[in-house]
Structure formats: C-alpha cells, structure tokens
C-alpha cells in the first residue's frame, strides 16, 4: 500500500476550505497551518497563467526529514505516511531544515508538527479532512499500489507534476496540470 494525494490545479479555486478543515480537525494552534494555498502567476502580460493549489507535506519516499532525525521521532508508517511522535521529538529542528517544502513547524508546545495525511482518520477508513471537505472536489486520495484506484487512474490519464522534483525527495502529492 502506498498512500498518495492527487490535486487538480485546474479545479482548485483557492477557497482555503482545506486549510480550515485541517486546522479544525487537527487542533492546529492559532497562527500555524499544516496545509496552505499558493497562488502563482507565471508568464508576462497578456499571456499570464494563474495556478492555485493546496500544499502540504509531500510524504516523500526519500524523506530527508526522517533520515536526519536523531531520535527516530520522525518516521514512516505503513502506506508511506511520514509522522512525528511528539514525545520522542527533542525539537532540534533538523527535520525543518531538511524539508525542501518548509512543510514542518515548531508547535508552540515545543515538538515538531506537520500534515499526517490525517492518519487517525485513515485507520478508520475515512479520507483526510482536507480531501473530504473540498467544495470543488479537486482533491483525491488513495492507494498508488492499486492500479485501479482513482489516484492511479488519474495519474495514468492526466498530465501531472510534483513539487521541486529536483530536490530528489520523491514526493507523493501529485498536481494535475
């Protein structure tokens, strides 16, 4: 099993519902966020393109944050989900320095926190909170190892990209373009 998220940038309207859903679901402290929206404009007038997308931890296969963690607090569980065990984390910040996506932050309580793909919901067979609330249904979640899953099919039939592939982390959040 390999969990992955597929996000359709052509459908995303940047409403930030996923951000709020995550903050509510995961009790993210005020002023922090585990997922966020980026709006990027490229090209030069009049040929400009606007892209909206929801970003988060990419649950990388080759996760530098897990490799550099001195205590093993950052670890990978079944399905490729990268998690942090709060009471093993010393708050050294090495994982934050190592993430090319700046997807982690120091929780006000001291430990390091980030997107968990809503692991607590996955084990109950539910979708991550962000995916389940998206009003345009632009987010998909599923098992990449299953060739018939919705995510596998989307990646088979649509053009997609990952973020900063040159960083070599093998990210598992995919963006349809």
């Amino acid at each position: 099993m390999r969990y992955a998220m597929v996000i359709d940038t052509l459908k995303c309207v940047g409403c930030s519902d996923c951000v709020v859903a995550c903050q509510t679901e995961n009790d993210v402290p005020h002023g922090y966020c585990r997922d966020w929206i980026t709006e990027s404009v490229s090209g030069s007038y009049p040929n400009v393109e606007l892209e909206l997308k929801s970003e988060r931890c990419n649950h990388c296969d080759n996760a530098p944050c897990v490799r550099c963690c001195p205590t093993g607090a950052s670890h990978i569980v079944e399905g490729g989900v990268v998690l942090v065990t709060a009471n093993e984390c010393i708050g050294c910040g090495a994982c934050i320095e190592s993430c090319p996506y700046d997807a982690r932050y120091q929780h006000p309580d001291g430990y390091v926190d980030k997107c968990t793909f809503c692991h607590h919901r996955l084990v109950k067979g539910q979708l991550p909170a962000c995916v389940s609330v998206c009003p345009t249904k632009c987010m998909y979640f599923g098992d990449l190892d299953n060739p018939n899953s919705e995510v596998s099919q989307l990646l088979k039939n649509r053009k997609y990209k990952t973020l900063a592939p040159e960083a070599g982390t093998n990210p598992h959040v995919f963006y349809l373009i």
Partner: protein
Amino acid sequence: MQEELFTSGRHIPNIDPSLQIWHWPIALYLFLGGLAAGILFFAALFYILGKEKEYPSAVKIATTIPPIALSLGLLALVYDLTHPLYTWQLYTTFRIESPMSWGAWVLLIVTPLSFLWTFSFYRESFSNIESKLNLFKRLKFLNTFEKFVITNRKYIAYALIPLSIILGVYTGILLSAFNARPLWNNAILGPLFLTSGLSTGAATIILLSKSIKERHLFGKIDLGLIIIELALIIHMIMGYYAGSQVQLEAMELLVGGEFTLMFFGFVVLLGLLVPALLELIELTGYKVPVIVPAIMVIIGGLIFRFIMIEAGQLTRYLY
C-alpha cells in the same frame, strides 16, 4: 517571470518568510566543537609523539579549554532545542544517517575524555592552584584515580585522534547534509570546518603558550591550515558556481549579496589573509606579537559559523 504568493495567510512563526529555526547557540556550538576538536587533536598527537615537555601548552595547558568549550557548547545546543525535556531521547537510539545523532554520541564520548585528559595534568600544570585547594589531600580517592588515568593516558590519546577528527568534520557535515538548504549542501563544508577548527585550536595553543619555540611551531602549523582553508573556500565557491540555480542564488548571498562584507571582510580578509601575512612576517624574523593573528583567527572562525547559520537558512528551493 514567475511569482508566487501565499493566500491562506501562511505566516508561521520562525518558518515564514525564511527559516529562523537555528539561532546563535548553534553557531556558537559549531565553533566551540571545532575549537575543542582542534585542541584535542594537537594534544593527543604531540603526546603520542612524546613531545609533552617541548610543547606544554598544546599537550597540557590549552587542554583545559575543551572541557569548558564542550560543556558550553552542549548547553548552547540544549538551549536551542524547543522540546528540551526529551533530550534523553537522543541516547535511546543511534541513527546512522543522522549527523545530529553522530554528534550527540561523539560528544557523549569526547566530553568525558577531555575532562579526564585535563584532570590527568591538573596537579602537574596547576600545582599553584592545587596547593591552595588541596583537593588531593582532602579527597584521597583522587590519587588512585589520577594514577589510573595517567597509566591509561596513551589509550585516551589514541582514541582522541579519530574522535576529534570526527567531531571536527561533524560540525560541517551537520550543515552539508541538508539538501534543502542550497548554501549548506556542499560536501566541502566537512573538511572546511575541520580545517577551521584545527586552525582555531592552533591559535588558542599559541595564545596560551609561554615558549617561543612552541609559538613558532604552531604559528607555522596555523599558517599551513589557513592556506588549506583558503583553498577550500575557493573550492566551496567554485562548487556553487558549478551548481544548480538554487546554489548560484545561495552563493550570491556571500558574493555580492548581503553577507559579502561580513564574509570577505571579516572571515577571509581579517580572519585568514591578514593573520597569514602576519604569521609569515613573523617567521621571516620580524617581531610581530603572535597573539594578534591568533586572536584574529579565532574571531574569524566564530564569525564564519554565524554567517553560515544565518545565510544558509535564507536559502531554499523555489518551485
């Protein structure tokens, strides 16, 4: 042209707009670790060579610094942890891929060894202090313990040679292992920080030495190390030039950007070139107080760590 802006109000403390996760304690810790590694390396080396009488500062006097430096460094490190009550978790595991883990374990071994080393020379080098404190008269077991440490000093020296090199290299690898920070992601940082640590160590030995012969020898050693360090810095910059766009942008911080004056002025010019010149003039027979270049080298080494920590966190992948 590409522009990107956050719309969901991402202003996470210490993360946006650029990382501020590691602060001055980490820079200080890297400096003190390198300094301690340098001094311990020379102490062990000259002890093994049987030169403890000829070079007393290197083998005996300056080695009072590493226990203090390592303890301060460790304090600084723990001070910068945000979940410090769990620090013991470092020692529940050894993670071979994590430089932090290597550092934690190496320090756990080197720090006590450095204390033992200083202790074994305490009565010999600081007899005036001991005559006031009378520690060995009051605590009888110290005598047997001292004898034990002195008979095993050779083994400590043999252990310290590789350990001090690992410690010195580690202060650089800790940064260079971060692929995500283009300024740090340069393999030359390991040897560069090791050389810089050895050089600050040699400078400290000069500072504390009373023998002209010893000061001259370490002046020569330091001169050699400075030349190697300059070569490695040229390597480092060439490495960025040959690198990807993110590395070119990272290098601009040092060459032309906001850290240029600090880097070329304080580290390269005042911390390396001028002291090298002074040491050279001194070696040709003119009178230069060797203390001046030694202090410049030490301050330059400290500033170098601060620049690398600060500037490195400004660099990132743009996508």
